């Protein structure tokens, strides 16, 4: 009887342990899965460009539907050797483009990447960007999952 109890206790302990482990796993998963639905992107576009000449700027709007702010920390694209976050600054009529480390997206707010302001800078284009085509750009965030956006090649 005692043996049976011990066996049951062992089985019971295993079950409890399994439940605890499962709960921990669920908890860990919940912590590491970022709510991609918090962010939406709209109107993603870039201008036509020629491989080997010039560069391209990708523009889009990010809407943060969530209650906490997030930060766009990095970008990448298979269409170019390099993709960076940039900002065009205008001071006394003089334009300069500067690399920036991040763009903060406020809670329940939006950020527009647009000509003369924030943009994703593609350098070393690996392909021509012709009207009607699309360019894929990966966006990496501090809290939300990375997301791919398809930028339509078109005139503004």
């Amino acid at each position, binding site marked *: 009887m005692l043996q049976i109890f011990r066996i049951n206790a062992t089985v019971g302990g295993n079950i409890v342990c399994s439940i605890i482990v499962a709960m921990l796993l669920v908890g860990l998963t919940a912590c590491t899965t970022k709510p991609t639905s918090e962010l939406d992107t709209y109107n993603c576009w870039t201008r036509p460009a020629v491989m080997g000449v*010039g560069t391209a700027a990708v523009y889009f709007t990010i809407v943060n539907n969530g209650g906490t702010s997030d930060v766009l920390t990095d970008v990448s694209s298979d269409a170019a050797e390099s993709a960076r976050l940039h900002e065009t600054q205008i001071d006394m*009529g*003089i334009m300069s483009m500067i690399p920036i480390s991040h763009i903060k997206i406020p809670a329940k707010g939006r950020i527009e990447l647009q000509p003369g302001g924030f943009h994703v800078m593609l350098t070393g284009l690996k392909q021509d960007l012709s009207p009607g085509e699309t360019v894929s750009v990966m966006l990496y965030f501090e809290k939300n999952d990375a997301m791919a956006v398809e930028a339509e090649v078109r005139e503004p």
Partner: protein
Amino acid sequence: MKGKVITTLTLLCVVTIITGACTPKIQLPILYEAPGFTLTNQDNLEIELSDFRDKVVVLDFIYTRCPDVCGEMSFRLQGVWHQLDEALRQDIVLVSVSFDLHDTPVVLKKYANIWDVPGWQFLSGTEGQISQVKNDYGVIAFSSEPDGWELTHNIVIVLIDRDGMVRKTYADLEYPQKDMVKEFEHILKQ
């Protein structure tokens, strides 16, 4: 009957006066003679500003590795060109001078293929030639980092009439396109 006619005429006069007063007149006085230059276009041909005498010239300054402001400026000019009457388009030439020595005729030839405006001239030159043109037209362009290819620059768009006289300079990317169309048309119709 006579009274009605007088009243109608009076009303018409008032409406005409008010409409005239409310419609902003385009005033583009002669500012100064456009400084001449000799540069090389995307087809490796030597081009002088005076080659375009009898045409209206829209001159701007760009570099092809500028993806944001220069691209936007070129698209705006292309947009303005497309909004002009077809007959007027024959009499206007878009001329873009690159202030980046990286922009050789070969590079500019590829860049020119992006745009949908026949006859658009993309010009380059030696360091001395470009420096002179920049000085003459008040263009500021420099690299803010050693060996950096990204250039800090201002916006300079110059409207030059058929007689080679500067009639307006634009320094604002946000200048309304519709106003630009009207001003180009105004000079083209002179």
